[in-house]
Structures are given as structure tokens and as C-alpha cells.
């Protein structure tokens, strides 16, 4: 008799807890009129403190001021971002869950393996950061210009070592493409991440590295590292002396973008709302200052521009797999 009372008590407790727990009813229609009525969650598919995370937090804190409701960063790292992207793709498209994607990683993952998300599962909102690729060597390196570098490589095939953040990762692709276009033969040395790859360069263990400008800007300014060339259309804002690979005759554009997207099916009004507010947040002085301090190059892209960019990235990556041998 006592036992059944206890079980009844337990059940009542559980049910009442369930009742006041968060309602995740997936059948309720999505309300666009009073958006937002509660917190907006932004999924960042990488660890706290990392590049994507820092950028996301800076933007989120500005956007929060404009929107009036908390914009909360949720870190969901794992499987090089696949975990976070999948969660974003599967989230309820009501505008309360959005997220950052990294390009090209968002696309390259789908080409490398059977991901649990597809590129079409998300809806572009806007692009935030565009981090250009650059070729860097040590500050006291013998290579003063990109020509020196290429000439040496041609005369000494395989001697130049270029560190990257993992075989098949974006920096490796950039380096391999450069190797192909320049007609040289270098040795790629994979490391576990961009911090490790740059540490190896700074310690003099490798000759060069292909990195993102945000990671090396401060080091280039202090003289620890020297940028030989950038993988961009035009010369970099803060590094006007650095030539682009394009002007030297090597047509390679490479960089990583960090964009804000929503799960597919999010109502257009909500996307527009989010777009307008985040864009305005990006344009505030406070945001630009923080971004500058964190060496994050901001480059806005509209939803349609972003959509095109994603498609182009996919085409690029698919094409490149054909003629680049990434297995060293």
C-alpha cells in the first residue's frame, strides 16, 4: 500500500515538472507577429574562445542591444563543426535558433563524409567575417618576397615545409592549390589546429604556413611573422604592401567566411528582421571597434550574395578535389 502511494507521488511530481518544463511542442504554428518574445539562441559549432566564437559573441552582444531580448551563444563543438551544423539544421525554424557556419568547412564536410546535414538545410541571413588566406614565413626569414619563395621552391623541390591545420582542412587546400598553380613541390606538414601550426612556424620548425589574416595580423605587425602574399582579389586593407597572388599571376582566391544562417523554413519576415538587426549591429562603431581589436575582418554579404557564395564554394571544392592530390 505504501509503495503504491510513493509511486503515485513520484509520477505526479514528474508530470508536474514536465508540465512546467519548456514546451517544445512542434505542432504549434510559428508566430511572426511579436518576434522575438524570448531569447534568441545562436549556435556556434566550435569551442568557446576560438575564432568563430569570439566573432559570434562580439556580434551577438551588439545585436542584443538593438533587439532588446537576450541573444545567447550556445557552443556545440564536435566533429569539426558537424555536430553544431546538424543541430542547427534540425532546429525548429521559428527564428529562435540560428547559428554561425564556417565556409568552406560547412561545405567541405559534406564532400568528405556522410554528414547528417545538407547544405540546403539552412537559409542565409548574412555574412559577418571574411578571413582572407595569406602565406606567411618567419619575420627573420630569408624570403623577402613571394618570388624568392617560389624560386627557392623550384630549385629545391620538397625542401620547403608548409604547416597546415590538418590534412584536407581549409589551409591545406589553400596551400595545395597554390603549390599546383605555382608549379612547385613543397612538403605539407599537418598539425592539429591553427594554433599548433603557427607555433611550429614561430618556433622555426617549418618554413612557411598558409593561415588566415586574423590569426597573423598582430604577429605580422610586430615583426614576428612576414606575410609574403594574400589569396585575395584586392590587396588587404591593413597590409597594402603585400601583393595578392592574383597580381603575381596565380589566380587563387581563398579564405574562410563566417556567416549567420537560420534553419530552412524560417519565415521570410523573421529572416528579414534578423538580417536588418544584425546588419545594423555590424555597422555600429562599438562593434567595428571590438572586431578590429580582435583582428576580425568584417565583410558583409546580403542573403542572396551569401547564398551564391555557398554555391560557389561547393563548386570550387568539388572541382579542386579532381586535380589536387591531398594525400601528400
Amino acid at each position, binding site marked *: 500500500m505504501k509503495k503504491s502511494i510513493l509511486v503515485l507521488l513520484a509520477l505526479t511530481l514528474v508530470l508536474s515538472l514536465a508540465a512546467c518544463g519548456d514546451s517544445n511542442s512542434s505542432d504549434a504554428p510559428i508566430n511572426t507577429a511579436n518576434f522575438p518574445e524570448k531569447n534568441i539562441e545562436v549556435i556556434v559549432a566550435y569551442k568557446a*574562445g576560438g575564432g568563430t566564437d569570439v566573432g559570434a559573441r562580439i556580434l551577438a552582444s551588439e545585436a542584443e542591444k538593438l533587439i532588446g531580448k537576450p541573444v545567447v551563444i550556445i557552443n556545440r563543438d*564536435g566533429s569539426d563543426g558537424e555536430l553544431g551544423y546538424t*543541430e542547427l539544421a534540425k532546429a525548429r525554424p521559428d527564428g529562435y535558433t540560428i547559428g554561425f557556419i564556417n565556409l568552406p568547412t560547412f561545405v567541405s564536410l559534406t564532400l568528405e563524409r556522410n554528414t*547528417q546535414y545538407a547544405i540546403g538545410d539552412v537559409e542565409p541571413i548574412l555574412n559577418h567575417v571574411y578571413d582572407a588566406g595569406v602565406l606567411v614565413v618567419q619575420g627573420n626569414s630569408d624570403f623577402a618576397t613571394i618570388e624568392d619563395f617560389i624560386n627557392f621552391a623550384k630549385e629545391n623541390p*620538397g625542401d620547403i615545409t608548409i604547416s597546415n591545420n590538418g590534412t584536407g582542412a581549409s589551409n591545406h587546400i589553400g596551400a595545395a592549390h597554390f603549390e599546383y598553380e605555382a608549379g612547385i613541390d613543397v*612538403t605539407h606538414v599537418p598539425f592539429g589546429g591553427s594554433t599548433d601550426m603557427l607555433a611550429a612556424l614561430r618556433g622555426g620548425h*617549418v618554413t612557411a604556413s598558409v593561415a588566415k589574416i586574423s590569426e597573423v595580423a598582430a604577429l605580422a605587425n*610586430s615583426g614576428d611573422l612576414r606575410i609574403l602574399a594574400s589569396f585575395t582579389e584586392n590587396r588587404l586593407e591593413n597590409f597594402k604592401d603585400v601583393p595578392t597572388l592574383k597580381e603575381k599571376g596565380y589566380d587563387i582566391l581563398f579564405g574562410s567566411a563566417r556567416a549567420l544562417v537560420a534553419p530552412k523554413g524560417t519565415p521570410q519576415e523573421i529572416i528579414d528582421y534578423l538580417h536588418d538587426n544584425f546588419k545594423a549591429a555590424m555597422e555600429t562603431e562599438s562593434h567595428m571597434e571590438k572586431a578590429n*581589436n580582435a583582428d576580425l575582418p568584417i565583410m558583409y554579404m546580403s542573403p542572396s550574395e551569401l547564398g551564391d557564395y555557398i554555391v560557389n564554394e561547393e563548386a570550387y571544392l568539388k572541382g579542386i578535389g579532381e586535380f589536387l592530390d591531398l594525400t601528400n
Partner: protein
Amino acid sequence: MDNVLYGFMAAFQITNLIAALLSVGVGIVVGSLPGLSAAMGVALLIPITFGMPAETALIALAGVYCGAMYGGSISAILLHTPGTSSAAATAIDGYPMTLKGEAGKALATATIASFTGGMVSSVALYTISPILATLALKFGPAEYFWLSIFGLTIIAGVSSKSMLKGLISGALGLVLSTIGMDPMLGVPRFIFGSNALLRGLPFTATLIGLFSMSQVLLLAEKHLRKGVQAKEVKDKVHIDKDELKRITPVSLWSAAIGTVVGILPGAGGTIASFIGYNESKRFVKDKSLHGTGIIEGVAGPEAANNAVTGGSLIPTLTLGIPGNSVTAILLGGLVIQGLRPGPDLFTIHGQTTYTFFAGFVVVNIFMLMLGLFAVRYFAKVSKVQDSILIPIIFTLSVIGSYAISNNFTDVYVMFIFGIIGYFVKKLNLNSAAIVLALILGPIGETGLRRTLIMNKGNYLALFNSTISWVLISIAVLSLLTPAIMAIFNKRKGKIENGD
């Protein structure tokens, strides 16, 4: 010099003191719960620190970091389940002490040793940061390879019962560490068709399984103790003068080692704590006492792992190279506040930085005070009856394994390793050896393969640098010392017996 003094004055401001005290408290709690890690605590604190001025934010982050590193020892000692992976070595002698009724002594030792670790590393922070930072950069793939070899020789040291079984455990750990992506080629190895294993076995979940869940099973197989542990918690005065004398040299030496290990990116508290444990044997005449519950065995690992906190800050602040996951997050926190690592931190932002350093010292002092004060309350946990410990530890293990990467597969891995860990214990294998090999395996493998890639397959490249030779010598010594000591003692015995 003025910055240093300014730093101390600023750190003693009320807001900073409160931040230090609260964050250490939070850190200790987070660290002591099996499953919650220092990195998790720091990551969760970051949004809260946004509204704060830079120094306060940094002090708060340091508080959680140091507190958590120490807090892990509490559950390691009382429940044989390390709260953080860096406390795994503390459990080896800590738990037997609890069983002997000396939980208070063990906890007090851990507190004092952790404090020593933090203080020694802060001295390094103030004085030789640039030198240590340069040293950190000099560690390339070849050096990391030899570091892992040295680490692996410690496995022999941790195997008190059977050397062969210890080695088998280590080898098993090495095999398990190959699961995941090949680090050079990017192709999957042994993932048994599960995408979740692409990054390898989830380390913390595996550790939680091997130590915490196996402990749950070990409790469940025997008669459940109702209240008090094996013996009454008998000590009132937790630690006496003689014991303090014993743990001081151990703590100082392990702290120095921990600081150096901390500066190396990729080598963290866990490795340091095992080295610290191994080093503590130097200070005990009768080597067989290790593992039975002696204070040196608790002081060594705890001093080392807390020394990692200060050590890891050095490359983070001077070079912008984070030593481990916690400092990576801290670095993000710095960047968000607009502070760039490098010489600027010590000049332009000198006031902020030195306030931070002073705050780091304050944090350690608070940790000591809080720890010693709370020892008698912590020790009461050992009186909780087994039937309550069993489900509680297990649920914490589950959420702890899940919360790291929000991946439920990690929980399944934890469960499997919990069962494996149970049999490891029963068959006299060695969980600590498995864990050490799991960490060191990848470091050694990547070090070796990178060196070969960089030098076109030339094995001689492994012997090129001074640091490599130093590490090789240390490794050889570490291997031979027990053997030499045995021969030496035998000879000594013969002489004394008038041979």
C-alpha cells in the same frame, strides 16, 4: 616595477577580491563534481564576465581555473572518482588514505600542495615568462615525441602491483589511442562505422568511465556500507608540523616540474599530475609505500597540476599560444576584452596584466583558505552511505560525459569503459596506465610522423636538438632508476650484513 605594485593594490580592491573569492569557490565546486571540468567552468563563465572590467574578468577566470584544478582532488580522495582528469593520479594514494580514516589529512595535503603549485607557477609568471615562452616555442615535433616517451616510462612507475600488467595496460591504451582519424593522412582508423569516433575516443568520457563508473560498480558488488567509512574520520588536527616538513620539498619540486609541463601546448594537468606522482617517489625512502596512502603521493600530483595553471598562462599571454583548452578559452576572453597577447600586454596594458597576476596570487591564497576551512565538511562526504553514492556518482558521470561535447555517444563510450574499468580493477590491470597511454600515444605518434615528414623520412632528425637529448636522458634515467636503486639497495644490504 610600478606596474607590479599597482597590480597588487588594484587586486585588493573590493570588486576584485569578491570576484576572486566567488570564482575560486565556484571553481572548487565545479572541479569536485566528477564530470564537470575546468574548461567547462571557465567556458560557462565567459558570458558573465562580459560586463566586467578586464582585470576582474580575468581574475574570475583564473579563480575558476585554479579552483577546479584543486577541486578535482576532493572527489578523487573521498570517492576514488577524480573530479577532473588532472586528479586521476591523486586518487592513487588519496583514496587509500580515506579508507584508513585519514581523509582530512589527505584533503589538507592536497590543499597545501595545490597552493604551493599555484604560487610557484606565479613566481615563474612574474619572473621568467619570456624565457619559458621561448623554451615552449623550441619544442617541435621531435621534442614532443621524446616527451611522450618519457611520459610512457612513468607507466612503469605507476604499476605498483605487476610491471607486466602495467605495461599491458599501457599498450592497450596505445592501441585505443589509434582510434579516430589518422593525424597525418586524415583517413579514419578503427571507427567501427561510427562518425562520433572520428575524433578518437572521447578522452574525458573514457576517463570518467574507467574511474568513476567503475567505482560505482565496485561499490555495488560488495556489502554496502551504511554510514562511516572503514574507520572513523579520526584526525582533528589535520596535518602536523612533521608532515608539513615532508610535503614541502615534494610540493616544491613537483610544482617546478608542473610549471614547465604547463608551458607546453598539448601537455596539461593530467600529464603533469602523473609526473608529479612519479617524482614524489624520490622523497620517500620505502618505495613500496606508494599506493598504500601516503601524503607524498597526494602532494606530488596536486602540486604539479596546480602549477600547470600558472605555467599554461605563460605562452598564452606572451605568445598568444594557449597551453590547453582552458587557456584557449581564456585567450578568447582576453581578445573579446580587446587585449592582445604579446609584449603589449606587459607594457601598454601592463596595469591590467599585473593586476591579473596579483589576482592570480590572491586566488591561490583564497583557495588555500577555503580549502583548509572546508576540509572538515568535505571529509563528511566520506560518511555518505554507499547506496546513495552509487546512483549519484553514476548520474554525474552521465551528465559529465554528455556535457563535454553534447554528444550522447560519449555517454555510451563512458558506459562501456565503466564496465572495462571494473574488470581492469578486478584483474589487476592499471587504469592510470591506460589513461596515460591514451594521452601520450597521439603526442608520440604525431611527433614521430611529423618529424619524418619534415625530414623526408630521416630518423636521425629525432636526435638533432639539445632538448631532444635532454628528454632522452631523462627518459632513460626514469627507466633505469628503479633498477639501479634495486641493485644499489641489494649491495647496501650485503655490506650491512657484513659480506
